[in-house]
């Protein structure tokens, strides 16, 4: 087991290396550059700017220089926010996104599993039909539609919640409600359907019949015998769900004006702010591969039939 963990962990390094290299190339290949939107800069000044950021060097040299800096933990200066470097911008925005993402994930997983359990145990009841209809809505409507719709409903029609912004001393935590609903809805819906289907399948299995034949209570059968097996597919879905929450947060932060890494990402992309984009890509991919790694490890603990060699 320990050897598996170490090996699996080491395999993260080439993955990250490939992601960084490809992103570096793709960004530079795309037309335009960080300073191309400035108007009428005399050529001498432009050359100075390029020189300052080492962008006059050959491509390979730029790449090696950048990789060297990244290895030292320095993501470089932002090309557009002159007084800030990328480390500063991301380290201030990341906690906001992490909070939003973690709460959304928890809401999606906990509510999703609960609804899945209730629907499967009351299969074909009105509870089940209602929950599954809501889930279909959640899966089929994209975030950028759900966000504005609930914003219109709760903030403008009912005027219960502020339209946008983030947690501050004046308004407290209410600003987090709509971003969390929007971001978690799709994943809640998916987890609810997944756990319902999976619980129904396990309920029909032979070992559940055995558990009933032993005289166990329905609640014991469900909690002890059904859930562990039934939630394995949910655990393996957590990896892709994390990825979806990360990309989803880019949209949600933009819609609700949340000062997180997602908003910075969009601005950085629009500005062709090479180093900031690269920094964001590195942070996102780091989070993603580490969480996928964690899911693999958890899976091994949950299913005794998996042996790591």
């Amino acid at each position, binding site marked *: 087991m320990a050897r598996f963990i170490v090996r699996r962990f080491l395999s993260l390094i080439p993955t990250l290396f490939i992601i960084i290299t490809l992103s570096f190339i793709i960004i530079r290949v795309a037309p335009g550059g960080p300073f191309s939107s400035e108007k009428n800069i005399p050529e001498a000044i432009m050359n100075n700017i390029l020189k300052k950021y080492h962008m006059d060097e050959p491509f390979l040299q730029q790449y090696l220089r950048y990789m060297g800096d990244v290895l030292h933990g320095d993501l470089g200066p932002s090309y557009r926010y002159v007084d800030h470097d990328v480390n500063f911008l991301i380290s201030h925005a990341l906690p906001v996104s992490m909070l939003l993402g973690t709460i959304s994930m928890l809401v999606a997983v906990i509510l999703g599993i609960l609804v899945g359990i209730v629907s499967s145990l009351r299969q074909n009841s009105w509870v089940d039909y209602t929950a599954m209809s809501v889930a279909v809505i959640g899966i089929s409507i994209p975030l950028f539609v759900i966000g504005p719709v609930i914003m219109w409903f709760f903030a403008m029609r009912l005027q219960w919640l502020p339209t946008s912004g983030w947690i501050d001393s004046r308004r407290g935590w209410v600003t987090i409600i709509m971003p969390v609903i929007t971001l978690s809805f799709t994943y809640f819906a998916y987890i609810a359907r997944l756990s319902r289907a999976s619980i129904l399948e396990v309920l029909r299995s032979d*070992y559940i019949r*055995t558990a009933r034949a*032993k*005289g166990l209570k329905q609640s014991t059968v469900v909690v002890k015998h059904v859930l562990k*097996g039934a939630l394995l597919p949910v655990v393996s879905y957590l990896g892709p769900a994390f990825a979806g929450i990360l990309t989803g947060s880019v949209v949600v932060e933009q819609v609700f004006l949340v000062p997180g890494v997602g908003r910075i990402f969009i601005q950085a992309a629009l500005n062709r702010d090479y180093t900031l984009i690269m920094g964001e890509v590195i942070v996102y991919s780091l989070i993603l591969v580490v969480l996928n790694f964690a899911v693999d490890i958890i899976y091994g603990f949950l299913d005794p039939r998996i042996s790591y060699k």
Partner: protein
Amino acid sequence: MTDETILQVKGLRTYFNTDDGVVKAVDGVDFSLRKGETLGIVGESGSGKSVTNLSIMNLIPNPPGKIMGGEVIYHDTDLLKLSDKGIRAIRGNKISMIFQDPMTSLNPFLRISNQMIETIVLHQKLSKSEARAKAIEMLVLAGIPAAEKRIDQYPHQFSGGMRQRVMIAMALSCDPEILIADEPTSALDVTIQAQILDLMKELTSRLGTAVIIITHSLGVVAGMCDTICVMYAGRIVERGSVDIIFEKPMHPYTRGLIKSVPRLDRKNGARLYSIQGQPPNVIDLPDCCPFFPRCEHAMDICKTKYPLVHDDGNEHRVACWLYGREGK
């Protein structure tokens, strides 16, 4: 074996609602079981053997299944009228079950110790450590080597035969009065089958447990049982002691079954006998003998009316028009 009857099934009917209509999986089954007796229920797939026994335990998945009528009298209580709590106190305690496929009947996510101890603690006033000792004792009885060590393993670390031994140990751990074995050896290979049957026979006779064994193998029945019930299309068509059934089978279906067993003393090159035709579809079965389309002796009355049960006095009963209308 004494004469005390411990279980009586009367007029049991279990139907399943499907998209194609109502499947009458069990349609009026009567039998009784005496203390320590071993009863074999034989029949083809779909004849209602398993559904009969799941109904006894009230374990029919509902929906789609429903017990429509009948009684299951265990000593003086009708198990079908018990509350959920009442029947749970019987399951795994007084009446326990083992199933066909040992590969899927144990929970793959829980250790054997966990699965055995939970049953023992549930039904007996024992602490966890006493229950563990009892579980190990049962595993030893069931022939699991190094039981103290193996009890903490997971099911996938056991072979098929070993898992069935675990199932038997678990089923007998609360000293039940009745053990229902639903095709306990069908999923095992032949050499293991014999071992498992021997083990069941030895343990149940030592503990005085009555056994209902469901099987489609006449060989299993001949070796294990005192009494045989032959089921066809949801009903018992013939019932009698094992000697009588093999010596003087009366129902054409039973005769056909016995004739289709491969025999070592038959001449080389002789073709194996088989009953022609297919088992009937039990949806919307008219009032007739369900066997008549396959029967060599079919008469006009067989097509219009289900036969009355004929009793020849030796507790040998048969439902067939060949034996007239006398008797009950």
